[in-house]
């Protein structure tokens, strides 16, 4: 635990302030009467999942209070989106929770589509579901990897990132980017999936179950893993609800709340899957739950692949549809020559529309909507306010990481200081989402 002498901890008025440098611990022990001490952890600390800073009140080695201090990654994405068009918004929001970019894109696009009152083609919906579920697996893999690394299990870190690469290969083949795809657009998808999409998905569905079984074999009966996770960071259902905690943490406390079931979107109602729950309500239960969630995700992908419909991936309305049905030109880059010939040679109106759509964007009717989706970390909600222009008036993001982090205090109280790392790891906060 790093003690940073220069950083001011949040001390109460009557607290004793001591600056510790080097080996003068003797003076601390003499000066502190009731063995209580305030320690700063972070924001640059290897076990805090990015730039999270925590101020810990300690009684000996027991945590009596944990104060998360956030904002070290505040990017102003919400404000920045107010000066960009609706389509450009996807590019911003995908960079928010960078382990679940496709969920951010989908949630934002669902909000815009709700305001526009348009129905996305079935094929686009199915592809969204497939990619989102793969994204959930990738996110849980990073959780396993970083969580394992923080507990000293380097093997788990290597394993998690190894399998995640395969998932990223799929994303890259479809969107061109490993992360921050901006692949899902208001009205559908940026472009249709490639010909080998199903093949690639099948290969992943063949590979991943074996690997997930490996993780279980490695960790489930591992005495160190058990000792460090069981009973650590308890959070019961009532407390979780009071603190607004959703997602795996709530389900690990026995509440089967999953927005995919509760308020289905993107056609989740057609797929047969279970909402796994655990009753342990501790870090170990969350580990078991996330493993099971990966299995359920694969069940959904399996069904979605089997019933993958054909057809367009973008709405037909040319006032909204980004020109997505474009193939590559002969030079390997650029637009479809057919499309270029149409807008440049045949129709002046088509050219004007193309120009206005790409520079000015489309307008969205005035109103307020709130659209939640089930991200790997819980309820990811987009509260969008439109005033009928081509730009959002205000977008507020209900980030599950941000809300869940409040529960870190109640989870860590009474635990040993070494278990704070486990508590934070089991919360799985992504600081890009917390700070936005």
């Amino acid at each position, binding site marked *: 635990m*790093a003690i940073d002498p*220069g950083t001011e901890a949040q001390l109460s008025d009557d607290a004793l302030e001591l600056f510790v440098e080097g080996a003068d611990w003797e003076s601390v022990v003499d000066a502190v009467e009731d063995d209580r001490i305030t320690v700063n952890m972070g*924001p*640059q*600390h*290897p076990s805090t999942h*990015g*730039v999270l800073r925590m101020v810990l009140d300690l009684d000996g080695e027991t945590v009596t209070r944990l104060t998360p201090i956030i*904002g*070290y*990654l*505040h*990017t*102003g*994405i919400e*404000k*920045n989106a107010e000066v960009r068009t609706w389509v450009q918004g996807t*590019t*911003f929001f995908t*960079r928010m929770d*960078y*382990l679940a970019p496709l969920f951010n894109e989908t949630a934002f696009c669902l909000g815009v589509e709700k305001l526009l009152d348009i129905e996305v083609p079935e094929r686009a919906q199915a592809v969204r579901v497939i990619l989102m579920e793969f994204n959930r697996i990738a996110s849980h893999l*990073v959780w396993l*990897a*970083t969580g394992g690394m923080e507990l000293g299990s380097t093997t788990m*870190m*290597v394993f998690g*990132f*190894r399998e*995640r*690469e395969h998932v990223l290969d799929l994303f890259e083949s479809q969107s061109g980017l*490993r*992360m*921050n795809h901006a692949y899902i657009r208001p009205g559908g998808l940026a472009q249709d999936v490639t010909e080998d999409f199903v093949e690639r998905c099948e290969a992943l569905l063949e590979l991943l179950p074996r690997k997930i079984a490996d993780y279980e074999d490695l960790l489930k009966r591992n005495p160190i893993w058990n000792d460090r996770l069981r009973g650590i960071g308890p959070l019961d259902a009532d407390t979780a609800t009071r603190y607004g905690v959703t997602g795996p943490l709530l389900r690990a406390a026995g509440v089967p709340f999953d927005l995919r079931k509760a308020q289905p979107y993107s056609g989740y109602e057609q797929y047969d899957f279970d909402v796994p729950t655990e009753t342990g309500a501790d870090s170990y239960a969350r580990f078991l739950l996330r493993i099971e969630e990966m299995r359920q995700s694969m069940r959904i992908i399996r069904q979605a692949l089997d019933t993958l419909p054909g057809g367009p991936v973008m709405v037909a309305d040319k006032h909204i549809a980004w020109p997505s049905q474009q193939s590559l030109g002969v030079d390997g880059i650029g637009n479809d020559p057919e499309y270029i010939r149409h807008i440049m040679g045949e129709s002046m109106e088509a050219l004007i529309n193309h120009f206005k759509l790409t520079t000015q964007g489309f307008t969205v009717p005035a109103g307020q909507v709130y659209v939640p989706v089930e991200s790997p970390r819980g309820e990811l909600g987009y509260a969008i306010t439109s005033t009928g222009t081509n730009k959002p008036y205000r977008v507020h993001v209900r980030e599950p990481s941000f809300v869940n982090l409040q529960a870190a205090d109640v989870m860590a109280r009474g635990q040993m200081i070494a278990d704070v790392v486990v508590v934070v790891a089991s919360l799985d906060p992504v*600081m*890009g989402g917390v*700070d936005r």
Partner: protein
Amino acid sequence: MGLESKLPNGILLTNVERFVNYSRSTSLWPATFGLACCAIEMMTSGGPRHDMARFGMEVFRASPRQADLMIVAGRVSNKMAPVLRRIYDQMSDPKWVLSMGVCATSGGMFNNYALVQGVDHVVPVDMYVPGCPPRPEMLLDGILKLREKISEETFAEQGAHA
């Protein structure tokens, strides 16, 4: 800076320089300074597929005291900037900074109130890696370029930027 700052610069030292630079450039110890999306790609670079260990630099150090390369991986907010500078000051000489991704390099697409528009306002940067986020291969390439740069530096130059 170490012993060489006590020595006069001269022709006799060129071989020493070459030897020292060779040692320094081939065993860079990066500090774990992950901020945002790029941090995930930085971790991936240490992972099995890209395997930074091939270049003798898989030891990411949690303490800035033990590191000589700071990879600024991600967007630097105004709130983070003083912390970043503090960590840089804690690193022992000689030290290098690699700015990873457009956000760290120039603020990137987030040209707004919250972000420092380029980490070079806060610390001197030796190598910029573009991309959002850069692929692990790009990061490795950036580090290899930085190694070339280090191996050509003279002691006087190193003293100047420290």
